[in-house]
């Protein structure tokens, strides 16, 4: 009997530096993706609520395409098709190149969800609010800045939180795009030490350490700024 497969946590201790490094990669992926997805998602949401049919159609097309495609496929497309076949190079250093390809794929995918969250946030604002704003003589930008957007942003904090958490977990799929992060290191350690329970639990706990505070933060913020209606 070799109980190590169930109770031996020493590989986690031995490789602690490597594990920290891998999770640092996960964090860097998440941060950059979060920023880019928010920017792209906001632009897309702006397109989808604009009075311009062309922009609306383009936004809808983008969201329907990316939201209904498996992330695995999106990332494989980035690493194999964009990089290998089309020769898209974002940097001469191979790891940096793969980092940006992964960030590109993840942000493109996540932005579709951000866009939908923002759009449904705008839809939670009752039409009467905007009508009242117009009635007291506010211009378009004023009503947007002072009435509609403040309410919309506060309504989307919670959905954005769950999108962020999903995105952090989704960084593991970057494994297929050849960038070394936590999931790839777990795979390596499975090969080196065998696929033991403690290694799996260690990595699962690592993700919880990242996602739980994020969840609490967004949950707190959503409550703190909840719109009272």
């Amino acid at each position, binding site marked *: 009997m070799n109980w190590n*497969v169930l109770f031996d946590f020493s590989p986690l201790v031995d490789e602690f530096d490597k594990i920290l490094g891998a999770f640092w990669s996960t964090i860097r992926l998440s941060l950059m993706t979060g920023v880019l997805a928010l920017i792209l998602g906001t632009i897309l949401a702006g397109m989808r609520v604009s009075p311009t049919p062309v922009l609306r159609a383009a936004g809808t097309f983008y969201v*329907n395409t990316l939201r209904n*495609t*498996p992330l695995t496929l999106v990332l494989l497309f980035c690493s194999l098709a964009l990089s290998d076949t*089309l020769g898209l190079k974002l940097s001469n250093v191979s790891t940096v190149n793969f980092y940006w390809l992964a960030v590109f794929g993840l942000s493109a*995918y996540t932005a579709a969800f951000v866009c939908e969250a923002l759009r449904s946030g705008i839809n939670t604002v009752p*039409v009467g609010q905007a009508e009242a704003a117009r009635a007291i003589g506010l211009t378009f930008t004023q009503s947007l800045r002072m009435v509609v957007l403040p309410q919309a942003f506060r309504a989307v904090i919670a959905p954005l939180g769950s999108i962020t958490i999903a995105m952090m977990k*989704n960084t593991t799929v970057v494994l297929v795009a050849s960038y070394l992060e936590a999931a790839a290191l777990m795979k390596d350690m499975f090969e080196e030490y065998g696929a033991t329970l403690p290694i799996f639990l260690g990595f699962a706990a690592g993700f919880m350490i990242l996602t739980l505070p994020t969840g609490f933060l967004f949950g707190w913020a959503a409550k703190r700024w909840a719109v009272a209606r």
Partner: protein
Amino acid sequence: MGGGTMTVTTEAPTPKARPARKSKQQVSVLFDAPGPRARLRNNVITLVAAVILLGIVYAIVARLNEADQFQGKLWEPFLDGKVWTEFILPGLVGTLKVTVVAAVLAMLFGIVFGLGRLSDHWWVRWPSAAIVEGFRAIPLLLLIFFIFSGPPTIANGLNREFPEVTAFTAVVIGLTLYNGSVLAEIVRAGINAVPRGQSEAAYAVGLRKGGVMRLVLLPQATTAMLPAIVSQMVVLLKDSALGWIVAYEDLLNAGFRVVGANYGNLIPAAIVITLIYILLNMALGYLAQWLEGRSRRSRKSAATTLSADPNKLPESGLGGGVA
């Protein structure tokens, strides 16, 4: 980990009688009905936007053309029946098989643990909550990996015979545990969406706990949560593509890796199988929306319908997440 705050899980029914404005003008919180100047400005923006978008499309097409991706020979395989019958359709069957089996199991898992979280006994409630929150917090990819390679190692270490875990089993179990946990939250939210008066009335006419659940709460909750359940199936179908990492022969593997490598047409292959995924998922998405509309109009259930919009699915804000 239990007891997080629930965000918006249900929506109040939208007021039905909203005064119709001009026939085609959609009522928007952002824009008033445009006058002559706004219409002119909109037309100018439309023109500029069209030019920019066409420019982007042109840039992409030019880049693909430069890499010779429009050669006939890269696309011809998809006109060949053999490519479909030997690679793509079997792959599609693989994807659908994994999705359907995992969906059924996940639904059972969801009902068991969703009801478990609503139990009156703490020794049922707490483990259910721990399991549901735990599996929602672990990235699915890690889960599938461990289910695939963990049991043989562990059985070996404990000197036990253990049948090799196939890629199919690993993907199905992974999808079941993760999506089952999300479905458990949907079931819980669905039952909570039934007004309290319903169960009070049921107790008042003498039903017991099981009867209240079986005869009153579940039938009404089912109507309310069906759209959200179907939406979750879209997530499940997409996640089935994670089978790639354990080399499961699904649509992605057969269509992208096999066809792409055999014919050297990675990009056309990616485009074709992306289209198949999108068609499948959009069909499910429309089904969810249709069910939502039907359920909202229905007067058979007192429960408020859970939205099909994945952003409004029940989230405890801890380990969960859409997408």
